[in-house]
């Protein structure tokens, strides 16, 4: 994966040899990927090393007018890409500098920062007065980890490069561990380690010889004062998608689209077709399931090539270790559904892989809680949002959505010393986030979504798409400011169940709305009451069908595969495919020395799970991820 590491010294400190920083970039290297090149730049205060791969080409470095730049990802200044397309001999960073210099303020001004668009991490260093600025985008979609001590600030796009410095203490943060084990994500700017932080969204970190400061240049303010009709938002969404796709994708070579056949990937696919972009499409699954069939129909409807990538039976076993290493200790390895297949995607001639991750969170209201009813012991969600009258109800709703199931056995997992924080921290951190949200939104649903959108880059499935950067250039129209602004002004009622979103698809391509949606089994343009009925019936029928097929011997090599999606059932995954690995690491790993868990409780939980008496798959996966991370350090 491309990335960089650097040290900025405060007055009177000794620099690390440039060569050592180059070694620290080894943390970024992807298994089996050749052609990486390592470069460095240094002066008396800043030492920087970066690793790039010419086939990926998502790092841009330049120097002009007394500034040094390093940009990773897709950066636009308004609608102009940086570096700009320039004539031969013209420095492509000149427009960028001109914009910075036009600011009246001495440093990097707010109005300049608010013009920055895209999915990027930008480093700007003013050479003469030795001032460093590192800027994250509005989602912090590209991670920057940093650690500061009295002598230096060390920063890197991979936490392992920060940990590689002997001066970085490696004490683990118990609150972070509690959150990770609870929900597979760590909130706020924390990482697994005390003192190592993640640069949050829309933030500029500025370092000078005597001080460092971070400041937010933009925030998620929800516009709740006046609303339009639903069609307005649908049309705006369709246009925004076209606009974002054009900005983000039209200058990227050799496109490939991860096509699940869901609403997000259909929208992107339709946008690309409308603006005339050619792309290959791919679906990844354990077998030719409903998702694959639907995706193929979508691709055929748009006359795009479609390929199905079969995950081999031992996929998760072989992906476990490299993905944990890649995770920065922030995400469970479970969400690495495509990582080990990316080399195959490259072999298809794809250089840029497009995905629609996270768009559903914004425009489908996926996490707005639904009312539910119970029938014959089974829970059925309704297409009706649940009321959130109080802060506590928002907190509870989020905990319900994010919490990996827990019972008494799971609660007994924590050691005596750790149990208090294990129990209190998940609620405490959500509560803090909701209180923050109260200053930015009045509507409870917006407050709820703020917690998730504001921590998007910490989201538990973040690894699903970010891991693609190890081998390919990754693009997602989600990170367009225009699209984000539209989200902030769309009322929750139109976001819920993707109401405006489906109509937006209709604006782009009516035919795509007639292709069934996997979950409901019916086309997207059917009324909600039919959809409600289908949501109750279709999964039940499919589930029984799959059971019968298994009895007949199908899917023998994929004991964890489900009918619901292309993601394996975590309980079955642990029980059938990863038993030895998880057992081994949980019973014998170095993480036990942290004293956070009770070894006897682990033995019992493993026993119950493997015997099929309980389902602790997600918990065990989270714990195993943590255990292996500690082991690998």
């Amino acid at each position, binding site marked *: 994966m491309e990335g960089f590491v650097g040290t900025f010294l405060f007055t009177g400190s000794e620099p690390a*040899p440039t*060569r*050592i920083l180059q070694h620290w970039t080894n943390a970024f290297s992807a298994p089996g990927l050749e052609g990486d090149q390592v470069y460095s730049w240094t002066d008396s205060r800043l030492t920087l090393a970066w690793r790039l791969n010419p086939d990926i080409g998502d790092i841009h470095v330049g120097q002009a007018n007394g500034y040094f730049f390093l940009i990773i990802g897709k950066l636009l200044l308004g609608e102009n890409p940086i570096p700009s397309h320039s004539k031969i001999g013209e420095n492509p960073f000149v427009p960028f500098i001109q914009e910075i210099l036009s600011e009246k303020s001495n440093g990097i001004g707010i109005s300049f920062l608010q013009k920055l668009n895209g999915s990027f991490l930008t480093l700007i260093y003013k050479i003469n007065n030795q001032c460093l600025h590192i800027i994250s985008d509005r989602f912090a979609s590209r991670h920057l980890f940093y650690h500061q001590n009295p002598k230096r600030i060390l920063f890197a796009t991979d936490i392992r490069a920060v940990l590689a*410095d*002997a001066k970085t*203490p*490696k004490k683990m943060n118990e609150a972070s561990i509690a959150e990770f084990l609870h929900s597979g994500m760590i909130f706020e700017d924390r990482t697994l380690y005390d003192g190592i932080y993640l640069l949050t969204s829309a933030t500029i970190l500025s370092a000078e010889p005597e001080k460092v400061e971070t400041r937010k240049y933009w925030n998620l303010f929800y516009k709740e004062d006046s609303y339009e009709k639903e069609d307005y938002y649908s049309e705006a969404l369709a246009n925004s998608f076209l606009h974002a796709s054009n900005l983000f994708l039209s200058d990227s070579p050799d496109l490939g689209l991860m096509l699940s056949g869901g609403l997000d990937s259909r929208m992107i696919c339709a946008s690309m077709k409308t603006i005339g972009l050619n792309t290959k499409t791919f679906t990844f699954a354990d077998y030719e399931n409903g998702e694959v069939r639907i995706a193929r129909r979508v691709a055929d409807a748009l006359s795009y090539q479609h390929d199905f990538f079969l995950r081999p039976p031992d996929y998760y076993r072989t992906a476990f270790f490299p993905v944990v290493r890649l995770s920065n200790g922030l995400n469970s390895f479970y969400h690495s559904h495509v990582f080990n297949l990316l080399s195959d995607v490259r072999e298809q001639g794809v250089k840029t892989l497009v995905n629609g991750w996270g768009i559903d969170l914004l425009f489908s209201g996926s996490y707005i809680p639904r009312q539910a009813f119970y029938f014959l012991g089974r829970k059925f969600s309704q297409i009706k949002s649940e009321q959130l009258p109080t802060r506590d109800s928002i907190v509870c709703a989020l905990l319900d959505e994010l919490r990996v199931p827990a019972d008494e056995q799971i609660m007994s997992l924590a050691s005596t010393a750790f149990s208090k924080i294990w129990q209190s921290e998940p609620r405490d951190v959500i509560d803090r986030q909701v209180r923050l949200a109260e200053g930015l939104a009045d509507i409870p649903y917006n407050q709820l979504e703020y917690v998730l959108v504001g921590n998007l880059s910490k989201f538990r499935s973040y690894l699903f798409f970010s891991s693609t950067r190890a081998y390919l250039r990754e693009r997602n129209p989600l990170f367009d400011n225009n699209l984000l602004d539209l989200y902030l002004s769309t009322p929750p009622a139109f976001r819920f169940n993707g109401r405006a979103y489906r109509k937006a698809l209709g604006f782009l391509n009516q035919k795509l709305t007639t292709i069934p949606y996997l979950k409901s089994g019916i086309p997207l343009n059917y009324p909600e009451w039919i959809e409600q009925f289908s949501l109750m019936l279709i999964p039940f029928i499919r589930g029984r069908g799959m059971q019968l097929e298994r009895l007949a011997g199908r899917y023998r090599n994929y004991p964890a595969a489900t009918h619901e999606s292309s993601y394996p059932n975590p309980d079955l995954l642990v029980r059938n495919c990863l038993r030895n690995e998880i057992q081994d690491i949980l019973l014998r790993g170095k993480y036990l020395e942290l004293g956070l868990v009770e070894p006897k409780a682990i033995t019992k939980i493993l026993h119950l799970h493997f015997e099929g008496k309980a389902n602790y798959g997600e918990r065990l996966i989270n714990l195993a991820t943590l255990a292996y991370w500690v082991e690998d350090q």
Partner: protein
Amino acid sequence: MLYCGPMADWRYEGILCGYVSLYRSTHDARWLDRAIIAAEDVLSAQLISGKFRNSAFQQGPMEGGTPHEAGVDVGLLELATLFREIGDEHWQKYFRAAELNILRYQIGELWNGEGFKDQPWDPIMVPNKNATLIEALILYEVLSGQDMTLYLEKAVEVILSAQEKSGPRAGGIIHRGTGPHRLAIGIYNARSICGLLRAYERDPRDEILDGVYGSIGFLHGLITQDGSYFGRYPDGSLIANPRMIAGSGDLLRAMAWGLKYFCGSEEDVLTLINVLTKAQLPTGGIPTGIGFAWRGSHYEYQSLPEFRDILPVAGWCDKAFRALALFTSQITDGEIGPVESECLWKGKKYIFRETTNEISLSELHNKKLIFQWKKFSNYPTVYLL
């Protein structure tokens, strides 16, 4: 353990360098006095050939030991450097002794144009032995003004060419003297790192720092709370026994030195300091290791220590002494006491005893001695091992 007499081997490297470090940090003259006594021991053991009598630590009473005599040279030259800094003319005496050894033996007999051989008849060039020589030659170069570049560059190359660049032992430096087994041994990697660091400080080339970085990364995987694993086999599997304790002093020195160049971690340094201090016996000695009973095995030995584990040996304790002296700025007198402990030998339990007068091993029930060595004597009085 049959010959227990004096040897002028690599123990003097640690002893002399340790005393020099203590003097530098405390300016207490007693450390200088002790260094002089040790240096005089070595001088009296030097033969006309330039070699040192009984310098072959692992071989027994034999001169020409490698890297032992180079280690002795390092000790003498560190002392000579100190003496010269403080303006004491005695530096020349120790310098000349080291010079005689370097010119007549190391360069005269072991140099083959591509590096330094293990013995005059044995063409194998062992990396860690070349590393000790690098340290000696650089110290000699500074004191003598003679340019040692030709020898140093080749010796560095011997080390770097033996380093595995990738695979399960990436960074590990192979001990070429282990034949087809091609072991990567922790304590010898540590010595190689120190040679490379000395060379890097003289001539800061990237490939040398690369070698240091890689080898320190390899060592990181060997460090445990109760010693350092012996090393790794070619397939990357652990040589879990013995876990070296006293000899981990060389790892500590290497890791501490590496920190200066941002290689390694402070945690590993602290762990190693803890390993040495925690293991120290009341007699002041430090056990050699843990797991000699399962020598070579992949699986950590967890049972009662074996006789060879618990026995403190001068030629390993000096490494601990030298390394710990780097972290010491104040010495307080401590109490010495006896040691009595159960241990195993050939699968049977015995009592190990050490006092200020002797080391013995006796049967558990009838107290029959199977080994007894009275300190300051050259042979055991009882040897039935």
